[in-house]
């Protein structure tokens, strides 16, 4: 390493018109949003929604959640994935918790396939908000995937904390995934 990495600073409370302008109703285009999969994308349609809770159990209305995921066949739309991807699916979504009445983040997407033999289907998550000086990484797995049992990431997480990484089906095509910054259900975050 030759150069020091630029330090992170908080995203602050006012990111909406810079990072999610269309979601928040500003007159500026967005690079992405919560609707990640146009109709032509193949795969099982799912909605992933949830809320972010602070250490006092209060809902956070100014968090930003980003999702990076593979397509239904487990391929990432990135040159480092040699398999090549479904060209219509970019795999990146972004949603702020400031527009929904219940302060939810809501992603309409497709269920990803397994990206390699050692990993169950998952969404990669970046979480940031006012009060975080550095974004956090986590993952969202799906409760109805048998492959979770052999997933090499879940298996390095202490068994009693694994549930914090697993979205639960709540009816229809909807999965629920809440994020807890602190407390007994504190979400597992990763150093990757």
């Amino acid at each position, binding site marked *: 390493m030759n*150069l020091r990495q630029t330090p992170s*600073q908080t995203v602050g*409370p006012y990111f909406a018109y810079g990072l999610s302008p269309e979601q928040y109703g*500003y007159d500026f285009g967005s690079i992405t949003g919560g609707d990640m999969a146009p109709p032509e994308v193949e795969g099982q349609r799912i909605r992933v929604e949830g809320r972010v809770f602070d250490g006092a159990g209060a809902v956070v209305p100014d968090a930003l959640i980003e999702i990076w995921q593979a397509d239904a066949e487990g391929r990432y739309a990135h040159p480092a994935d040699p398999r090549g991807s479904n060209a219509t699916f970019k795999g990146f979504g972004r949603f702020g918790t400031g527009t929904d009445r219940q302060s939810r983040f809501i992603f309409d997407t497709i269920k990803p396939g397994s990206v390699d033999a050692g990993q169950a289907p998952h969404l990669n998550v970046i979480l*940031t908000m006012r009060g975080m000086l550095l974004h956090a990484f986590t993952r969202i797995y799906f409760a109805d995937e048998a492959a979770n049992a052999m997933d090499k990431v879940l298996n390095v997480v202490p068994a009693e904390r694994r549930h914090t990484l697993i979205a639960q089906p709540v009816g229809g095509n909807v999965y629920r995934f809440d994020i807890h910054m602190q407390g007994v259900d504190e979400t*597992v975050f990763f150093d990757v």
Partner: protein
Amino acid sequence: MTDTSNARDWAGQPPYLAPDYKSTLLRSPSKPPIKLPQTISEITGPVYGHESVTGNDADLTLNGRRNGEPLGERIIVTGRVLGDDGTPLPNTLLEIWQANACGRYVHKADQHDAPLDPNFLGGGRCVTDANGVYRFMTVKPGAYPWGNHINAWRPQHIHFSLFGPSFVTRLVTQMYFPGDPLLPLDPIFLATPAATRSLLIAEFSLDATESGYALGYKFDIVLRGRNATPMEA
């Protein structure tokens, strides 16, 4: 096995919990993050290149105009985006947002009693060129008060968001201005380790200045490198 040469430089980053910045108290994870080897999920990442930027996206003095020119001191902010091995990163997206010249954000949650500027939005985008260079035209943002403590004021700053080559190279940060008397009083800036704080401050540059038009500031940004290879499946 995993090559972790692009690991996060924790020692140079601010911590999750920084008590003088009060919002961190309830919003910081209390448990240390769990170390993971990088897989295909981490060495890939969102790809946003030149196609994601249009028209006046990089000129904030133009992209929010309604009936005239935004007020304030015009500035140019330019620099290079590099990996921590020194390699320039071409074709990577930068997103910025900032207060107007009076220190007021367009965001509806901002209730600071300072005027909005009908001709200034404060959001911009740019993609680095083949040499990793980006350039924004904007106005210098004003300082503004915030509720962290009595008589707290944020130094003038511009928010930056970058992707870099993979999921783990993502960076969200703030650029400050040289000589700002509020910097030594700001708990967000001061939460950064002393050894790396200066990396957040732009340099005034006569070379980047456009004669008769706008002052230039240089701000280079260093992301985690691209050297990782995935672990064996």
